[in-house]
């Protein structure tokens, strides 16, 4: 099979599956499971096939014109660009989506809306793969928006609950809030650069010979950044992601760990020269990333719900990727994206098993339950591996990718000649910001990972009192997926040498200084949490170490630093007030006109009814008088002529 054909089939298969499921799912529910799982797995296999065929070679470009735009030099094309970034991210997306589909067969067994769920997950996967493969900005936008709407439906899967409804609306609105400037940015970029093709834009910008420059690089970069911040849950548009945990856990794994949020980072990675053209944009990105990292890590430390912890950690890890991009190192960013996608999907799916077993997602409740570890051994091991990867403990995957990011930041901060990957140069300020924030976040990440693990599982002297509620065991599909995903979480990092060949060719190897610094920070964080927990555990019962560690900050951190309240004060309340004003105007002003418009004819009608007395003589008098007037008028007219 041709590589291009295979690449086209990768997003096409899940889309077709989604269409077929939507058409037939209601009538033939028995076919939904194979229709959901098989095309996704096939597309994963094809993605792997494409990746293997393309490994380390020159990027493969293929395109066909989709539609003219009125400007002959700016057509919209169905184009694929198969470079190392695209094929690797596609493999990640397809594999995680396949795992999620498999897992969902167990997790959502007996769910009445499984058919639509499976179709939406397939469609979602297809859209993400489209975003990954496409070389055309408009087609990318289509996939981008399809993901947005699918995430709306999937987060709102349990729409019977108010939280799911409001969470889905919030996810939709917040991401759309970023998408509006995103669209404007895409159009501005395309008209500025004279092409919708990403490869053309990048080639023009990075070629030193042509001397091409964007006329408003900062403006375009900031507009695009708004969309990226919405999708990738960066400050200040990150608030939808923790709430989006109201969706089913596999959806969280798919959307909020590996695919949708990765789209933003991936987009910046593809268009990095555009962002690198503006030092201001990079510094802004670095500042946003730093704030996001530290803030979300603190918030994650204080959360009680296991999925919310993971959600905040996702935001933080995305901040890491954004930081890598801010120092103009897209290899590190995509490397971290890959490893994070693997271990975060693993963590989410394991959390799903834990929640199903414990019957609750609350860490405080789990910390009182005995034998969670024994009842769900697969989830225990998966969580352990995932958390170790998350905390960047060598030799797990997270260690290498995080090292790559911090190393890139260190390069950008200290010697501004980090130029192996490209001619892109990042400002030293961005490097310093990312470096400091990254180290702080490494510490905090290790801290909340340790806390999660301790609260959920660690019970050295069997001090826990409550027994687990009776429940069904996780199905073999679910646990099997966990073991599958454990492999990349463990081993993907070791492939850094191979991966750098597939990407731009820059070194992804960990450097000694940063490794020691970051690992030290991680160990420090973990130890601090363990010590605090130990004291609490010995003194009374298993207690949450977070309040003691965070001190007065805990309350704010748990509320996500009150950003929702800020939004409520800045956006929601003025909008409410404006709506109230409009309502008042509608009632007081417009309704008056309406009532007047109804009342005046009513009044006239009442007057006219007065004439309808039923007295025939009155009628006749009026008739004769009228005939008289008409006759006189006719005569006068005739005479006048």
């Amino acid at each position, binding site marked *: 099979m041709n590589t291009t054909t295979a690449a086209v089939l990768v997003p096409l298969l899940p889309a077709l599956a989604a269409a077929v499921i939507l058409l037939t799912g209601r009538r033939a529910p028995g076919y939904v499971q194979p229709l959901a799982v098989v095309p996704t797995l096939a597309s994963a296999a094809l993605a792997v096939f494409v990746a293997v065929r393309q490994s380390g070679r020159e990027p493969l470009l293929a395109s066909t014109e989709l539609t003219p735009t009125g400007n002959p030099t700016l057509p919209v094309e169905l184009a694929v660009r198969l470079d190392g970034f695209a094929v690797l991210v596609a493999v990640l997306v397809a594999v995680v989506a396949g795992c999620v589909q498999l897992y969902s067969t167990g997790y959502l067994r007996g769910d009445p809306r499984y058919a639509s769920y499976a179709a939406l997950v397939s469609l979602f996967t297809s859209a993400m793969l489209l975003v990954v493969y496409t070389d055309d900005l408009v087609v990318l936008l289509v996939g981008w928006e399809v993901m947005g709407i699918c995430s709306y439906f999937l987060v709102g899967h349990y729409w019977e609950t108010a939280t799911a409804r409001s969470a889905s609306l919030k996810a939709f609105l917040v991401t759309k809030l970023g998408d509006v400037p995103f669209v404007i940015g895409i159009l501005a970029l395309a008209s500025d650069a004279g092409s919708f093709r990403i490869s053309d834009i990048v080639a023009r910008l990075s070629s030193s010979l042509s001397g091409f420059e964007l006329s408003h690089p900062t403006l375009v970069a900031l507009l695009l950044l708004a969309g990226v911040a919405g999708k990738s849950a960066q400050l200040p548009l990150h608030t939808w992601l923790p709430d989006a945990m109201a969706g089913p856990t596999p959806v969280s794994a798919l959307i909020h760990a590996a695919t949708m949020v990765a789209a933003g980072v991936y987009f910046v990675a593809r268009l990095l020269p555009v962002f690198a053209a503006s030092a201001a944009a990079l510094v802004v990105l670095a500042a946003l990333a730093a704030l996001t990292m530290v803030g979300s890590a603190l918030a994650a430390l204080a959360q009680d719900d296991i999925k919310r912890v993971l959600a905040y950690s996702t935001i933080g890890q995305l901040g890491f990727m954004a930081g890598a991009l801010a120092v103009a190192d897209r290899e590190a960013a995509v490397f971290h994206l890959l490893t994070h996608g693997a271990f975060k999907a693993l963590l989410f799916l394991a959390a799903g098993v834990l929640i199903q077993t414990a019957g609750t997602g609350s860490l405080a409740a789990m910390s009182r339950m005995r034998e969670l570890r024994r009842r769900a051994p697969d989830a225990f091991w998966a969580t352990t591996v995932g958390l170790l990867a998350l905390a960047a403990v060598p030799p797990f995957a997270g260690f290498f990718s995080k090292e790559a990011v911090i190393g890139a930041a260190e390069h950008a901060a200290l010697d501004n000649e980090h130029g192996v990957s490209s001619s892109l140069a990042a400002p030293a300020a961005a490097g310093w910001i990312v470096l400091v924030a990254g180290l702080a976040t490494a510490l905090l990440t290790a801290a909340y990972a340790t806390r999660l693990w301790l609260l959920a599982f660690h019970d050295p002297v069997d001090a826990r009192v409550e027994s687990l509620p009776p429940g069904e065991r996780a199905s073999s599909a679910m646990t099997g997926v966990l073991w599958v995903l454990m492999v990349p979480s463990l081993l993907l990092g070791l492939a850094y040498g191979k991966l750098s060949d597939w990407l731009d060719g820059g070194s992804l190897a960990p450097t000694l200084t940063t490794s020691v610094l970051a690992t030290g920070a991680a160990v420090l964080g973990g130890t601090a949490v363990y010590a605090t927990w130990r004291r609490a555990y010995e003194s009374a019962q298993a207690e949450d170490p977070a309040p003691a560690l965070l001190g007065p900050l805990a309350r704010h951190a748990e509320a996500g630093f009150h950003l929702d309240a800020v939004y409520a004060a800045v956006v929601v309340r003025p909008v409410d007030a404006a709506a109230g004003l409009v309502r008042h105007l509608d009632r007081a002003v417009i309704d008056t006109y309406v009532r007047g418009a109804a009342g005046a004819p009513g009044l006239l009608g009442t007057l006219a009814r007065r004439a309808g007395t039923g*007295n025939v*003589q009155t009628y006749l*008098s009026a008739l004769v*008088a009228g005939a*008289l007037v008409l*006759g006189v008028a006719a005569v006068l007219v005739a005479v006048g002529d």
Partner: protein
Amino acid sequence: MTERELLSTSGQEIVFVLVGLMVLGAAVLCVTTRQLVHAALWLVVALGGLAVEYLLLTAEFVAWVQVLIYLGSVVVLLLFGLMLTRAPIGPSPDADSGNRPVALAVALASAACLVTLVVDAFRTTWIDLDEPHGRSDALGDSLFRTWVLPFEALSVLLLAALVGAIALSRARRARAGTPADGGGR
């Protein structure tokens, strides 16, 4: 048609105007009197005077038909109607409705208009009465030649009116059957 002035009067015209004034006066009394039976009698006078006017206009056949049918049957029917609705014999104060001023105004206005119009239109028109135009033989001739079809249609109409009147009366008797039946007091 000799050249005659507007008010150069002949004997026929004098009689016509005198009888016309009588007819008008009787008609006015008919619509204003407070005694209902008197109104019917004034109607007799007015219609009888009108028959004289027809004679003056040489329409003799129409005049006799007028006398026969109007005076002979219609007025009698009206008198019967008055009796059957138990109309009072003496003057009744509420013979006129509250619409009277309006009626007066409308009637006067229309009279003014019509008279003005008619006088203005026929100021110089004269009827030649030397040759009688309404003799019975000529009228009968045209009635049973030219107008025989409308005549027959009219007979059907009369039959229908007869049937209708009977039906209405029968319905009344069948439905009501109350003791409040019969003539006046």
